[in-house]
Protein backbone atom coordinates (compact mmCIF):
# COMPACT_ATOMS: atom_id res chain seq x y z
CA UNK A 1 0.00 0.00 0.00
CA UNK A 2 1.04 3.57 -0.52
CA UNK A 3 2.73 5.42 2.29
CA UNK A 4 0.30 7.20 4.60
CA UNK A 5 0.68 10.84 5.45
CA UNK A 6 1.65 9.89 9.00
CA UNK A 7 4.43 7.60 7.77
CA UNK A 8 5.68 10.22 5.38
CA UNK A 9 5.89 13.10 7.84
CA UNK A 10 7.55 10.89 10.42
CA UNK A 11 10.09 9.79 7.83
CA UNK A 12 10.76 13.32 6.57
CA UNK A 13 10.48 14.99 9.95
CA UNK A 14 8.53 17.76 8.26
CA UNK A 15 4.83 18.52 8.12
CA UNK A 16 3.13 21.29 6.20
CA UNK A 17 0.18 23.15 7.66
CA UNK A 18 -2.14 25.54 5.86
CA UNK A 19 -2.87 28.87 7.52
CA UNK A 20 -4.79 32.01 6.55
CA UNK A 21 -2.45 34.53 8.14
CA UNK A 22 -4.90 35.55 10.82
CA UNK A 23 -3.98 36.64 14.33
CA UNK A 24 -3.82 35.10 16.82
CA UNK A 25 -4.13 31.65 15.23
CA UNK A 26 -1.31 31.44 12.72
CA UNK A 27 0.39 34.37 11.09
CA UNK A 28 3.62 35.51 9.56
CA UNK A 29 5.74 37.80 11.68
CA UNK A 30 7.57 40.76 10.16
CA UNK A 31 10.78 38.69 10.06
CA UNK A 32 8.97 36.03 8.03
CA UNK A 33 8.76 33.41 10.79
CA UNK A 34 5.44 31.94 11.85
CA UNK A 35 3.68 32.51 15.14
CA UNK A 36 0.21 32.10 16.61
CA UNK A 37 -1.54 29.89 19.10
CA UNK A 38 -2.64 27.27 16.56
CA UNK A 39 0.74 27.17 14.94
CA UNK A 40 2.60 26.82 18.20
CA UNK A 41 0.23 24.21 19.61
CA UNK A 42 0.53 22.28 16.36
CA UNK A 43 4.28 22.46 16.60
CA UNK A 44 4.29 21.19 20.16
CA UNK A 45 1.95 18.32 19.29
CA UNK A 46 3.80 17.33 16.12
CA UNK A 47 7.08 17.42 18.07
CA UNK A 48 5.55 14.87 20.40
CA UNK A 49 4.78 12.73 17.33
CA UNK A 50 8.41 12.89 16.32
CA UNK A 51 7.96 15.50 13.58
CA UNK A 52 10.24 18.34 14.60
CA UNK A 53 9.61 20.73 11.72
CA UNK A 54 6.30 22.46 10.92
CA UNK A 55 6.19 24.51 7.74
CA UNK A 56 3.38 26.91 6.94
CA UNK A 57 1.60 27.30 3.61
CA UNK A 58 -0.26 30.59 3.41
CA UNK A 59 -3.61 30.43 1.62
CA UNK A 60 -6.78 32.45 1.36
CA UNK A 61 -9.24 31.51 4.10
CA UNK A 62 -11.64 30.10 1.54
CA UNK A 63 -8.90 27.91 0.12
CA UNK A 64 -8.03 26.18 3.39
CA UNK A 65 -10.27 23.14 3.01
CA UNK A 66 -9.86 22.77 -0.78
CA UNK A 67 -6.12 23.24 -0.33
CA UNK A 68 -5.97 20.49 2.26
CA UNK A 69 -8.01 18.18 0.06
CA UNK A 70 -5.96 19.08 -2.99
CA UNK A 71 -2.86 18.13 -0.99
CA UNK A 72 -1.13 21.48 -0.91
CA UNK A 73 -0.52 20.81 2.82
CA UNK A 74 -1.18 18.05 5.35
CA UNK A 75 -3.12 19.84 8.07
CA UNK A 76 -4.96 23.06 8.81
CA UNK A 77 -3.78 25.17 11.73
CA UNK A 78 -5.74 28.31 11.14
CA UNK A 79 -8.31 28.73 13.87
CA UNK A 80 -10.84 26.86 11.77
CA UNK A 81 -14.24 26.49 13.49
CA UNK A 82 -15.59 22.99 13.75
CA UNK A 83 -18.88 22.98 11.84
CA UNK A 84 -21.06 20.09 10.73
CA UNK A 85 -20.70 20.98 7.06
CA UNK A 86 -16.93 20.99 7.44
CA UNK A 87 -16.93 17.71 9.35
CA UNK A 88 -18.39 16.16 6.23
CA UNK A 89 -15.36 17.29 4.24
CA UNK A 90 -12.39 16.89 6.52
CA UNK A 91 -11.39 15.19 9.74
CA UNK A 92 -11.01 17.45 12.76
CA UNK A 93 -8.92 16.86 15.83
CA UNK A 94 -10.74 17.26 19.15
CA UNK A 95 -11.49 20.94 19.82
CA UNK A 96 -8.63 22.78 21.45
CA UNK A 97 -10.10 26.23 22.08
CA UNK A 98 -13.62 27.57 22.56
CA UNK A 99 -14.55 31.15 21.88
CA UNK A 100 -17.54 33.36 21.60
CA UNK A 101 -18.31 35.65 18.70
CA UNK A 102 -17.74 39.35 18.95
CA UNK A 103 -19.24 42.04 16.78
CA UNK A 104 -17.24 44.98 15.50
CA UNK A 105 -18.86 48.19 14.28
CA UNK A 106 -17.69 51.63 13.22
CA UNK A 107 -16.74 53.98 16.02
CA UNK A 108 -19.72 55.34 17.92
CA UNK A 109 -21.92 52.52 16.58
CA UNK A 110 -23.73 54.96 14.26
CA UNK A 111 -26.46 52.48 13.33
CA UNK A 112 -27.04 51.58 16.94
CA UNK A 113 -26.62 47.84 16.54
CA UNK A 114 -26.91 45.80 19.71
CA UNK A 115 -28.37 42.51 18.48
CA UNK A 116 -29.17 40.66 15.30
CA UNK A 117 -32.76 41.72 15.82
CA UNK A 118 -31.58 45.29 15.17
CA UNK A 119 -30.07 44.01 11.92
CA UNK A 120 -33.33 42.33 10.95
CA UNK A 121 -35.24 45.51 11.67
CA UNK A 122 -33.08 47.75 9.52
CA UNK A 123 -32.48 46.44 5.98
CA UNK A 124 -29.89 49.19 5.43
CA UNK A 125 -27.50 47.43 7.75
CA UNK A 126 -24.95 45.35 5.90
CA UNK A 127 -22.92 42.57 7.44
CA UNK A 128 -19.45 41.89 6.08
CA UNK A 129 -18.50 38.22 5.88
CA UNK A 130 -15.79 36.10 4.45
CA UNK A 131 -16.53 33.70 1.64
CA UNK A 132 -16.58 30.24 3.17
CA UNK A 133 -16.81 31.46 6.75
CA UNK A 134 -18.88 29.54 9.27
CA UNK A 135 -21.03 32.42 10.38
CA UNK A 136 -23.04 32.46 7.16
CA UNK A 137 -24.97 29.42 8.37
CA UNK A 138 -25.83 31.25 11.60
CA UNK A 139 -27.12 34.27 9.70
CA UNK A 140 -29.21 31.97 7.59
CA UNK A 141 -30.77 30.41 10.69
CA UNK A 142 -31.44 33.89 12.07
CA UNK A 143 -33.35 34.74 8.92
CA UNK A 144 -31.03 37.55 7.81
CA UNK A 145 -31.57 37.94 4.06
CA UNK A 146 -28.77 37.54 1.49
CA UNK A 147 -29.19 41.18 0.53
CA UNK A 148 -27.79 42.24 3.91
CA UNK A 149 -24.72 40.02 3.58
CA UNK A 150 -21.64 41.20 1.70
CA UNK A 151 -19.08 38.45 1.11
CA UNK A 152 -15.40 39.07 0.56
CA UNK A 153 -12.78 36.58 -0.40
CA UNK A 154 -10.42 37.37 2.38
CA UNK A 155 -10.17 38.65 5.90
CA UNK A 156 -8.35 41.95 5.11
CA UNK A 157 -11.07 43.05 2.74
CA UNK A 158 -13.80 42.54 5.37
CA UNK A 159 -12.26 44.98 7.80
CA UNK A 160 -11.36 47.43 5.03
CA UNK A 161 -15.01 47.39 4.04
CA UNK A 162 -16.02 48.10 7.64
CA UNK A 163 -13.55 50.95 7.87
CA UNK A 164 -14.66 52.54 4.61
CA UNK A 165 -18.33 52.23 5.52
CA UNK A 166 -19.12 49.58 2.92
CA UNK A 167 -20.50 47.34 5.68
CA UNK A 168 -21.76 48.18 9.15
CA UNK A 169 -20.70 45.21 11.20
CA UNK A 170 -18.60 42.13 11.06
CA UNK A 171 -18.49 39.14 13.30
CA UNK A 172 -15.28 37.52 14.30
CA UNK A 173 -13.83 35.83 17.31
CA UNK A 174 -13.22 37.93 20.37
CA UNK A 175 -9.51 37.57 19.67
CA UNK A 176 -9.67 38.96 16.18
CA UNK A 177 -12.00 41.74 17.24
CA UNK A 178 -9.68 42.79 20.03
CA UNK A 179 -6.65 42.63 17.78
CA UNK A 180 -8.33 44.83 15.21
CA UNK A 181 -9.60 47.40 17.66
CA UNK A 182 -6.15 47.57 19.18
CA UNK A 183 -4.46 47.94 15.80
CA UNK A 184 -6.87 50.68 14.88
CA UNK A 185 -6.02 52.55 18.04
CA UNK A 186 -9.64 53.39 18.64
CA UNK A 187 -9.93 55.83 15.77
CA UNK A 188 -12.44 54.19 13.46
CA UNK A 189 -13.89 50.95 14.85
CA UNK A 190 -15.00 49.49 18.18
CA UNK A 191 -16.60 46.38 19.67
CA UNK A 192 -20.39 46.69 19.67
CA UNK A 193 -21.32 46.86 23.33
CA UNK A 194 -23.57 45.69 24.67
CA UNK A 195 -24.41 43.03 22.06
CA UNK A 196 -26.86 40.21 22.61
CA UNK A 197 -25.46 37.07 21.00
CA UNK A 198 -27.96 34.68 19.48
CA UNK A 199 -28.98 31.47 21.19
CA UNK A 200 -29.45 28.33 19.11
CA UNK A 201 -31.24 25.29 20.50
CA UNK A 202 -31.06 26.80 23.95
CA UNK A 203 -27.28 27.11 23.79
CA UNK A 204 -25.43 30.36 23.31
CA UNK A 205 -23.35 30.20 20.15
CA UNK A 206 -19.91 29.03 21.08
CA UNK A 207 -17.33 28.26 18.47
CA UNK A 208 -14.85 25.45 18.83
CA UNK A 209 -11.52 25.56 17.06
CA UNK A 210 -10.00 22.41 15.69
CA UNK A 211 -7.04 21.32 13.62
CA UNK A 212 -8.09 19.86 10.28
CA UNK A 213 -6.83 16.73 8.47
CA UNK A 214 -7.72 14.72 5.42
CA UNK A 215 -10.42 12.11 6.18
CA UNK A 216 -8.08 9.32 5.02
CA UNK A 217 -5.56 10.19 7.71
CA UNK A 218 -7.48 8.80 10.70
CA UNK A 219 -4.28 7.32 12.12
CA UNK A 220 -2.69 10.75 12.08
CA UNK A 221 -5.73 12.34 13.71
CA UNK A 222 -5.74 9.75 16.51
CA UNK A 223 -2.06 10.18 17.24
CA UNK A 224 -2.35 13.96 17.01
CA UNK A 225 -5.23 13.93 19.53
CA UNK A 226 -3.14 11.84 21.91
CA UNK A 227 -0.21 14.18 21.53
CA UNK A 228 -2.33 17.26 22.07
CA UNK A 229 -3.87 15.73 25.20
CA UNK A 230 -0.51 14.72 26.57
CA UNK A 231 0.95 18.22 26.42
CA UNK A 232 -2.02 19.83 28.15
CA UNK A 233 -0.96 21.43 31.41
CA UNK A 234 2.76 21.30 30.68
CA UNK A 235 4.63 24.57 31.25
CA UNK A 236 5.26 24.84 27.53
CA UNK A 237 1.51 24.58 26.88
CA UNK A 238 0.65 27.18 29.50
CA UNK A 239 3.29 29.52 28.12
CA UNK A 240 1.81 29.35 24.64
CA UNK A 241 -1.69 30.14 25.91
CA UNK A 242 -0.42 32.97 28.06
CA UNK A 243 1.48 34.48 25.15
CA UNK A 244 -1.81 34.94 23.28
CA UNK A 245 -3.90 35.94 26.34
CA UNK A 246 -5.90 32.74 26.30
CA UNK A 247 -7.25 31.75 29.68
CA UNK A 248 -8.42 28.48 31.16
CA UNK A 249 -11.98 29.54 30.43
CA UNK A 250 -11.19 29.40 26.72
CA UNK A 251 -10.19 25.74 26.87
CA UNK A 252 -13.12 23.37 26.25
CA UNK A 253 -13.81 20.86 29.00
CA UNK A 254 -12.98 17.24 28.15
CA UNK A 255 -16.73 16.48 27.96
CA UNK A 256 -17.05 18.53 24.83
CA UNK A 257 -16.67 15.95 22.09
CA UNK A 258 -15.98 16.48 18.45
CA UNK A 259 -18.77 14.07 17.56
CA UNK A 260 -21.35 16.29 19.30
CA UNK A 261 -20.16 19.49 17.66
CA UNK A 262 -20.29 17.79 14.29
CA UNK A 263 -23.94 16.86 14.71
CA UNK A 264 -26.26 19.06 12.72
Amino acid at each position, binding site marked *: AAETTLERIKRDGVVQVGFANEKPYSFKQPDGSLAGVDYELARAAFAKLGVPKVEGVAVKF*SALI*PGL*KAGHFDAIAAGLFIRPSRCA*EIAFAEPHIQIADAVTVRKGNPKNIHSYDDVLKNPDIKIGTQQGSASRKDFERLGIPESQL*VSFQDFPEVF*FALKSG*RVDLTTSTIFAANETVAADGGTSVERAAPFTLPVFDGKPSINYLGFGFRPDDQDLVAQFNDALRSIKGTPEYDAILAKYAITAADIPSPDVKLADICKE
Partner: protein
Amino acid sequence: MTILGIDILADWFRLSVVTVVLPKLIAAASVTIYVALLAFVGALVIAIPLLWAQRSHLPLIARPAVFLSDFIRSTPLLLQVYFYFFVLPQIGVMLPAIATGVLALSIHYGCYVSEAYRAGLEALPVGQRDAVIALGFSRFDAYRYIIVPQLIPFLIPALGNLLVSIFKETPLLASIAVTDIMFVAMQHGADHFQYIEPITLCGLIFLALSLATSFVIRVLENAASQTWLGRRNIRG
Protein backbone atom coordinates in the same frame (compact mmCIF):
# COMPACT_ATOMS: atom_id res chain seq x y z
CA MET B 1 -12.79 3.91 -12.01
CA THR B 2 -12.71 2.28 -15.42
CA ILE B 3 -10.05 1.90 -18.01
CA LEU B 4 -11.89 4.17 -20.35
CA GLY B 5 -11.53 6.98 -17.89
CA ILE B 6 -15.18 7.85 -18.17
CA ASP B 7 -15.82 7.03 -14.56
CA ILE B 8 -12.84 9.03 -13.41
CA LEU B 9 -14.38 11.95 -15.18
CA ALA B 10 -17.78 11.22 -13.70
CA ASP B 11 -16.15 11.25 -10.30
CA TRP B 12 -14.67 14.62 -10.85
CA PHE B 13 -17.39 16.19 -12.78
CA ARG B 14 -20.56 15.18 -11.05
CA LEU B 15 -23.76 15.71 -12.97
CA SER B 16 -25.63 16.15 -9.71
CA VAL B 17 -23.44 19.15 -8.91
CA VAL B 18 -23.81 20.55 -12.41
CA THR B 19 -27.59 20.55 -12.24
CA VAL B 20 -27.44 22.57 -9.04
CA VAL B 21 -24.69 24.99 -10.04
CA LEU B 22 -25.47 25.67 -13.66
CA PRO B 23 -28.75 27.56 -13.12
CA LYS B 24 -27.06 29.72 -10.48
CA LEU B 25 -24.16 30.46 -12.79
CA ILE B 26 -26.37 31.31 -15.73
CA ALA B 27 -28.33 33.72 -13.56
CA ALA B 28 -25.06 35.28 -12.42
CA ALA B 29 -23.83 35.51 -16.00
CA SER B 30 -26.47 38.15 -16.57
CA VAL B 31 -24.67 40.32 -13.99
CA THR B 32 -21.36 39.73 -15.76
CA ILE B 33 -22.85 40.64 -19.12
CA TYR B 34 -24.65 43.67 -17.74
CA VAL B 35 -21.54 45.01 -16.02
CA ALA B 36 -19.30 44.31 -19.01
CA LEU B 37 -21.59 45.94 -21.56
CA LEU B 38 -22.18 49.01 -19.39
CA ALA B 39 -18.45 49.33 -18.82
CA PHE B 40 -17.79 48.94 -22.54
CA VAL B 41 -20.19 51.74 -23.42
CA GLY B 42 -18.68 53.83 -20.65
CA ALA B 43 -15.21 53.24 -22.03
CA LEU B 44 -16.28 54.19 -25.58
CA VAL B 45 -17.63 57.48 -24.23
CA ILE B 46 -14.85 58.33 -21.77
CA ALA B 47 -12.25 57.74 -24.48
CA ILE B 48 -13.47 60.69 -26.56
CA PRO B 49 -12.70 63.56 -24.17
CA LEU B 50 -9.61 61.68 -23.01
CA LEU B 51 -8.21 61.47 -26.53
CA TRP B 52 -9.15 65.07 -27.12
CA ALA B 53 -7.26 66.09 -23.97
CA GLN B 54 -4.24 63.95 -24.85
CA ARG B 55 -3.99 65.50 -28.29
CA SER B 56 -4.49 69.03 -27.04
CA HIS B 57 -1.86 71.57 -27.97
CA LEU B 58 -1.95 72.98 -24.43
CA PRO B 59 0.58 71.10 -22.30
CA LEU B 60 -1.49 71.89 -19.23
CA ILE B 61 -4.26 69.75 -20.64
CA ALA B 62 -2.26 67.21 -22.61
CA ARG B 63 0.38 66.28 -20.02
CA PRO B 64 -1.97 65.30 -17.17
CA ALA B 65 -4.18 63.41 -19.60
CA VAL B 66 -1.25 61.46 -20.99
CA PHE B 67 0.09 60.76 -17.51
CA LEU B 68 -3.29 59.67 -16.22
CA SER B 69 -3.76 57.28 -19.10
CA ASP B 70 -0.26 55.84 -18.69
CA PHE B 71 -0.74 55.47 -14.95
CA ILE B 72 -4.07 53.74 -15.29
CA ARG B 73 -2.84 51.42 -18.00
CA SER B 74 0.24 50.45 -16.03
CA THR B 75 -1.36 49.59 -12.71
CA PRO B 76 -3.46 46.51 -12.02
CA LEU B 77 -7.18 46.82 -12.46
CA LEU B 78 -7.63 45.04 -9.12
CA LEU B 79 -5.78 47.86 -7.42
CA GLN B 80 -7.96 50.46 -9.09
CA VAL B 81 -11.08 48.55 -8.12
CA TYR B 82 -9.98 48.49 -4.50
CA PHE B 83 -9.15 52.14 -4.66
CA TYR B 84 -12.58 53.20 -5.94
CA PHE B 85 -14.39 50.77 -3.68
CA PHE B 86 -12.66 51.42 -0.41
CA VAL B 87 -11.17 54.90 -0.74
CA LEU B 88 -13.88 56.86 -2.52
CA PRO B 89 -16.33 56.37 0.39
CA GLN B 90 -13.84 58.11 2.65
CA ILE B 91 -14.28 61.29 0.63
CA GLY B 92 -18.00 60.82 0.77
CA VAL B 93 -18.60 59.12 -2.58
CA MET B 94 -20.38 55.88 -1.81
CA LEU B 95 -21.31 54.11 -5.04
CA PRO B 96 -22.84 50.65 -4.95
CA ALA B 97 -20.46 47.81 -5.70
CA ILE B 98 -21.75 47.28 -9.23
CA ALA B 99 -21.49 50.97 -10.06
CA THR B 100 -17.98 51.02 -8.64
CA GLY B 101 -17.06 48.07 -10.81
CA VAL B 102 -18.52 49.64 -13.92
CA LEU B 103 -16.71 52.89 -13.15
CA ALA B 104 -13.37 51.17 -12.65
CA LEU B 105 -13.70 49.11 -15.82
CA SER B 106 -14.91 52.11 -17.84
CA ILE B 107 -12.00 54.29 -16.82
CA HIS B 108 -9.43 51.52 -17.20
CA TYR B 109 -10.64 50.44 -20.61
CA GLY B 110 -11.44 54.00 -21.66
CA CYS B 111 -7.69 54.53 -21.70
CA TYR B 112 -7.27 51.59 -24.04
CA VAL B 113 -10.18 52.63 -26.23
CA SER B 114 -8.66 56.07 -26.62
CA GLU B 115 -5.47 54.39 -27.84
CA ALA B 116 -7.58 52.47 -30.34
CA TYR B 117 -9.22 55.68 -31.54
CA ARG B 118 -5.81 57.27 -31.86
CA ALA B 119 -4.46 54.32 -33.85
CA GLY B 120 -7.48 54.58 -36.12
CA LEU B 121 -6.91 58.27 -36.75
CA GLU B 122 -3.24 57.64 -37.41
CA ALA B 123 -4.00 54.79 -39.79
CA LEU B 124 -6.20 57.04 -41.87
CA PRO B 125 -4.20 57.90 -44.99
CA VAL B 126 -2.95 61.51 -44.77
CA GLY B 127 -4.39 62.00 -48.22
CA GLN B 128 -7.89 61.80 -46.75
CA ARG B 129 -7.14 64.78 -44.56
CA ASP B 130 -5.67 66.65 -47.54
CA ALA B 131 -8.76 65.92 -49.60
CA VAL B 132 -11.09 67.04 -46.84
CA ILE B 133 -9.24 70.35 -46.49
CA ALA B 134 -8.90 70.84 -50.21
CA LEU B 135 -12.64 70.41 -50.65
CA GLY B 136 -13.31 72.85 -47.83
CA PHE B 137 -15.21 70.62 -45.38
CA SER B 138 -15.76 72.08 -41.92
CA ARG B 139 -14.04 70.23 -39.10
CA PHE B 140 -17.31 68.81 -37.83
CA ASP B 141 -18.56 67.73 -41.27
CA ALA B 142 -15.18 66.16 -41.98
CA TYR B 143 -15.44 64.00 -38.85
CA ARG B 144 -19.06 63.21 -39.37
CA TYR B 145 -19.12 62.34 -43.06
CA ILE B 146 -15.57 61.38 -43.93
CA ILE B 147 -13.42 60.39 -40.97
CA VAL B 148 -15.70 58.55 -38.54
CA PRO B 149 -17.36 56.40 -41.22
CA GLN B 150 -13.91 55.28 -42.33
CA LEU B 151 -12.76 54.62 -38.75
CA ILE B 152 -15.64 52.35 -37.81
CA PRO B 153 -14.64 49.27 -39.80
CA PHE B 154 -11.07 49.80 -38.64
CA LEU B 155 -12.14 50.02 -35.00
CA ILE B 156 -14.50 47.06 -34.87
CA PRO B 157 -11.83 44.37 -34.38
CA ALA B 158 -9.84 46.39 -31.85
CA LEU B 159 -12.92 47.33 -29.86
CA GLY B 160 -14.16 43.76 -30.06
CA ASN B 161 -10.94 42.56 -28.49
CA LEU B 162 -11.33 45.10 -25.72
CA LEU B 163 -14.86 43.90 -25.09
CA VAL B 164 -13.57 40.36 -24.74
CA SER B 165 -10.95 41.65 -22.29
CA ILE B 166 -13.63 43.40 -20.29
CA PHE B 167 -15.62 40.18 -20.08
CA LYS B 168 -12.51 38.41 -18.92
CA GLU B 169 -11.72 40.96 -16.24
CA THR B 170 -15.23 41.29 -14.84
CA PRO B 171 -14.63 38.35 -12.46
CA LEU B 172 -12.17 40.59 -10.63
CA LEU B 173 -15.18 42.41 -9.27
CA ALA B 174 -15.95 39.34 -7.20
CA SER B 175 -13.31 40.76 -4.89
CA ILE B 176 -15.60 43.68 -4.08
CA ALA B 177 -18.58 41.37 -3.71
CA VAL B 178 -20.19 41.99 -7.08
CA THR B 179 -22.14 38.78 -7.39
CA ASP B 180 -21.01 37.96 -10.87
CA ILE B 181 -20.49 34.49 -12.26
CA MET B 182 -17.11 33.97 -10.63
CA PHE B 183 -18.37 35.17 -7.26
CA VAL B 184 -21.25 32.73 -7.41
CA ALA B 185 -18.95 29.91 -8.47
CA MET B 186 -16.53 30.55 -5.64
CA GLN B 187 -19.38 31.05 -3.17
CA HIS B 188 -20.78 27.73 -4.16
CA GLY B 189 -17.33 26.23 -3.80
CA ALA B 190 -16.89 27.69 -0.34
CA ASP B 191 -20.34 26.63 0.85
CA HIS B 192 -20.32 23.13 -0.58
CA PHE B 193 -16.64 22.41 -1.05
CA GLN B 194 -17.30 21.68 -4.69
CA TYR B 195 -14.91 23.68 -6.83
CA ILE B 196 -14.14 21.74 -9.97
CA GLU B 197 -17.61 21.74 -11.43
CA PRO B 198 -18.35 25.46 -10.92
CA ILE B 199 -14.89 26.44 -12.17
CA THR B 200 -15.19 24.29 -15.25
CA LEU B 201 -18.71 25.52 -15.97
CA CYS B 202 -17.51 29.09 -15.56
CA GLY B 203 -14.84 28.42 -18.17
CA LEU B 204 -17.41 27.05 -20.59
CA ILE B 205 -19.73 30.01 -20.03
CA PHE B 206 -16.87 32.41 -20.70
CA LEU B 207 -16.00 30.52 -23.84
CA ALA B 208 -19.61 30.85 -24.94
CA LEU B 209 -19.62 34.57 -24.16
CA SER B 210 -16.46 35.11 -26.09
CA LEU B 211 -17.67 33.04 -29.05
CA ALA B 212 -20.85 35.11 -29.05
CA THR B 213 -18.83 38.31 -28.96
CA SER B 214 -16.63 37.14 -31.83
CA PHE B 215 -19.72 36.26 -33.77
CA VAL B 216 -21.24 39.70 -33.25
CA ILE B 217 -17.94 41.31 -34.22
CA ARG B 218 -17.81 39.29 -37.39
CA VAL B 219 -21.38 40.20 -38.26
CA LEU B 220 -20.62 43.88 -37.68
CA GLU B 221 -17.44 43.69 -39.71
CA ASN B 222 -19.36 42.09 -42.52
CA ALA B 223 -22.06 44.72 -42.30
CA ALA B 224 -19.48 47.48 -42.39
CA SER B 225 -17.64 45.95 -45.31
CA GLN B 226 -20.85 45.21 -47.20
CA THR B 227 -21.09 48.90 -47.80
CA TRP B 228 -17.67 49.43 -49.29
CA LEU B 229 -14.71 47.38 -48.15
CA GLY B 230 -16.07 44.04 -49.21
CA ARG B 231 -17.20 45.06 -52.67
CA ARG B 232 -13.62 44.38 -53.62
CA ASN B 233 -14.76 41.03 -54.95
CA ILE B 234 -17.26 42.54 -57.37
CA ARG B 235 -14.40 44.39 -58.98
CA GLY B 236 -14.61 43.84 -62.69
